[in-house]
C-alpha cells in the first residue's frame, strides 16, 4: 500500500484513520498519523503538501466526530496544549455499541418507520446514517407491511444550521421577522431545543441580548443563520425538548378563538377537522399556538369566515383583506 501514488478516495482515508486510531492504546501524534496512515502518508512525503495535509486532518477529525466517532485528544504530561505532542485515539469502549443493545424485528421495523419520518433535509441524512449503522446488527426485517409513515419536512432553511449549532454548543445570530412587524431584527441566541409542534418547527433558546428564554418560529427566520463564533451561554438540559413541547401545548390549550363559519363551507369542514375544535353558542372554539398564523389561515377562507373573538384576531384578519384591496383595487 505504501508508495502507490494513486489518489485515495475520502471515505477510504477516513476509514483508515478510524482503524488506526482504534488500534492504538496510547494514541498517535499528528506527525505519526500523517506520515503513516493510508491516504495521508503518500502526500506527507511532498513537503509542499504538508500544510494542506494538516488542514485536511483538522477537517477529517470534525467529520468523524459528526458521525459519532469518539475521537479523543490526549495532552502529553507536562505539555498541555502542545499540538505537536498531543496524541489522538478512539477508545474502543466508547466507539463500540454496547453488547446488550439488540433490537427485535418489531423494534427494527419501528425504527425503520421512525427514520422514514424525515424525507428531506438534515434529519433525513442523520436518520439514513443511523439506519445504516443499525444494519450492522444484521436484524432481518419481517415481510410484514411497513405501511404508511407520517413524514415531517424540515424545509426551513434555518433547520440545518440550527441543528449543527445546537449540537456543537455554538451561539447563533439570525434575522427574525416578529409577527406584526414589517422589518426583521437580528437576534443573538444560544439554541437549546428544536421542537415540532402543530405542524411547525420552533427554536427554543436563550436570547442573549435580552437575557431571557424565547421561542422562535423557524419559518419567521427570514435570512441566513450564522455562528457568532462564541460558545452558547446556555446548554440544554436533558428534559429541555419535552419541557418546551409541554409549554407550547399549554399555550395552545389556553389560546382560543371564536369563529363563525358558513355551514357546509370549506371553512366549516376544515375548522371542525382541526384538533381540539369545539362547538359553542357563539361559534366554533378554535385552538392555536400563534394567533397571527391562525389569522393567515382564517383570512384564506374569505367571506366564509367571521372572527368573533379575540378583537386582536378580528383586526388581524381584516387587515390582511384590506391590504389586498389596497394593492389590487
Amino acid at each position, binding site marked *: 500500500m*505504501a508508495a502507490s501514488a494513486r489518489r485515495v*478516495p475520502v*471515505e477510504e482515508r*477516513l476509514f*483508515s484513520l478510524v482503524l488506526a486510531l*482504534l488500534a492504538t492504546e496510547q494514541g498517535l501524534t499528528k506527525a505519526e498519523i500523517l506520515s503513516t496512515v493510508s491516504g495521508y502518508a503518500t502526500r506527507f512525503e511532498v513537503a509542499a503538501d504538508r500544510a494542506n495535509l494538516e488542514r485536511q486532518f483538522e477537517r477529517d477529525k470534525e467529520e468523524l466526530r459528526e*458521525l*459519532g466517532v469518539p475521537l479523543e485528544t490526549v495532552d502529553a504530561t507536562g505539555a498541555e496544549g502542545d499540538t505537536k505532542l498531543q496524541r489522538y485515539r478512539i477508545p474502543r469502549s*466508547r*466507539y*463500540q455499541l454496547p453488547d446488550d443493545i439488540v*433490537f427485535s424485528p*418489531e423494534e427494527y421495523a*419501528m425504527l425503520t418507520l421512525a*427514520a422514514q419520518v424525515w424525507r*428531506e433535509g438534515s434529519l433525513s441524512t442523520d436518520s*439514513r*446514517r*443511523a439506519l445504516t*449503522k443499525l*444494519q*450492522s446488527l*444484521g436484524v*432481518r426485517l419481517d415481510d410484514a407491511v411497513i*405501511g*404508511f409513515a*407520517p413524514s415531517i*419536512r424540515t*424545509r426551513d*432553511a434555518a433547520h440545518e444550521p440550527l*441543528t449543527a449549532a445546537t449540537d456543537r454548543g455554538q451561539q447563533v445570530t439570525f434575522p427574525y421577522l416578529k*409577527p*406584526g412587524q414589517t422589518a426583521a431584527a437580528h437576534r443573538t441566541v444560544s439554541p437549546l*431545543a*428544536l421542537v*415540532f409542534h402543530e*405542524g411547525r418547527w420552533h427554536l427554543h433558546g436563550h436570547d442573549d441580548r435580552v437575557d431571557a428564554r*424565547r*421561542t422562535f418560529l423557524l419559518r419567521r427566520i427570514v435570512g441566513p443563520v450564522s455562528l457568532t463564533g462564541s460558545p452558547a451561554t446556555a446548554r440544554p438540559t436533558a428534559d429541555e425538548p419535552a419541557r418546551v413541547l409541554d409549554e407550547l401545548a399549554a399555550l395552545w390549550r389556553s389560546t382560543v378563538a371564536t369563529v363563525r363559519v358558513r355551514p*357546509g363551507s*370549506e371553512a366549516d369542514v376544515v375548522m371542525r*377537522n*382541526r384538533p381540539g375544535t369545539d362547538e359553542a353558542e357563539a361559534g366554533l372554539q378554535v385552538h392555536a399556538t*400563534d*394567533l397571527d398564523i391562525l389569522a393567515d*389561515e382564517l*383570512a384564506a377562507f*374569505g367571506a*366564509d369566515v*367571521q*372572527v368573533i373573538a*379575540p*378583537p386582536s384576531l378580528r*383586526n*388581524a384578519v381584516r*387587515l390582511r*383583506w*384590506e*391590504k*389586498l384591496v389596497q394593492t389590487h383595487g
Partner: protein
Amino acid sequence: MANRPAPLKAQDKLAFLLALVPYLIDQVRVTVDVAAAHFATTPDEMRKAVMLIAMSGTPGADGTYTHETLFDIDWDDFEQRDLIRFRAAPMEDKPRFSSREAAALLAGLQRVAARPEFAARVDIVELMSKLARGATGAPAPFAVRAGELAAIQATLVDAVTARRRVRIDYVTTRGERKVREVDPMSFDGVDDAWYLRGWCLTRDAERTFLLDRMASAELLGPAEVHETAGDSDELFQGASTDERVTLSMPLAGLPLIADYRGPSDPVRIEGDRAIVTLRIAHWGILGRIAARLAGGVEIIEPVSARLAVADWARAALAAHGDETDRDADDATDDATGSNSV
C-alpha cells in the same frame, strides 16, 4: 414533494463501511447479493466496498501496513463464487450512533409511537432508552409532538390496510361539496396534513384528497385494483387547463407557497421580492395564497386575476362587518405570551 435522496457524501460512505465490517464478520459467510440486499445497495457497490476493506488495515508498530495488520478475505470464494468470508480482521466493532442520528430516530419514534400495531408489540420507552444508550453523546435536543389520530384518519388507515373502498364527503378548493367513492392506494402524512391518494370512481381517475377537507368517511366493500400511470411521490399535479398567474411576493415567503408550486413553475428573484408564476385551477385559490402570506402579495398579471382578488377581499370584508380598529394590539403579542416572540 418528490422524494429525492441527497447524493451520498464521504461520511455516508464511511458509515456504510463501518457498519458493513461487523455485519460481514457476524455473517461469517455471505453472498454478495444477500449482503447488498441487506444494505439496500447494488451487488457492484458491495463488491467495491469489500475490495476497499480488504485492502485496508492498521499501520503496524513500525508505521507500515503489513500482511498481519490488514483485513484479509478468502479471495477464491470472492472472485469465483461471489462469496464474502473474512480470514482476518483488525476491527469488528459495531459503531455507536452520533447524537444527531440518535435524536433523529428518537424524534421519528415520537411521531410513529401512537400507531396501534406497534403499541402492543414494542416497549417504546425501552426502545428509546436503548437508542439513547447507543449514542456517543447525549442525543441532540429535538422533540416532536405525537400526532393525534382523528376518527376519519383511523377509518382511512383501515381502508388502506384492508384494501376497502371508501365513500367520502369532500369539500373542494372551490367550496363545492362532493360525495366521492375512492379505492385507496396510499395514505400519507406530511407535517400535520394527511393525504388520501386513490382511484376516484366518480371521475374514473387517480386523485388526491386532503383529510382536512373531508366532512366524513365511511368504509364500503372491497376495493378494486386500478392501472395507474402516476408517480406516487408527486401529490400535486397541475392540469393543463389551469390558468397561469404571475405574482410578486416577499422572497422569504417562498417556502410558504411550496405546495402550490409545480417543479417547472418559473421564479425570478428581484431584490427581496420573488416573481413567481403559478398554475391556478380557479381564481378562488388566489385569495388563499395571498392571505397565507399575510396579504403581502401582489398579483401582476393577468388583470382579471387582480380584479378577482380585490373582489374576493371586498366580499370578505363586507361579510365580516365592522371597521378595523387600527389601535388594537396586533394579534401575536396576545397569542404568544411572555415566553415567546
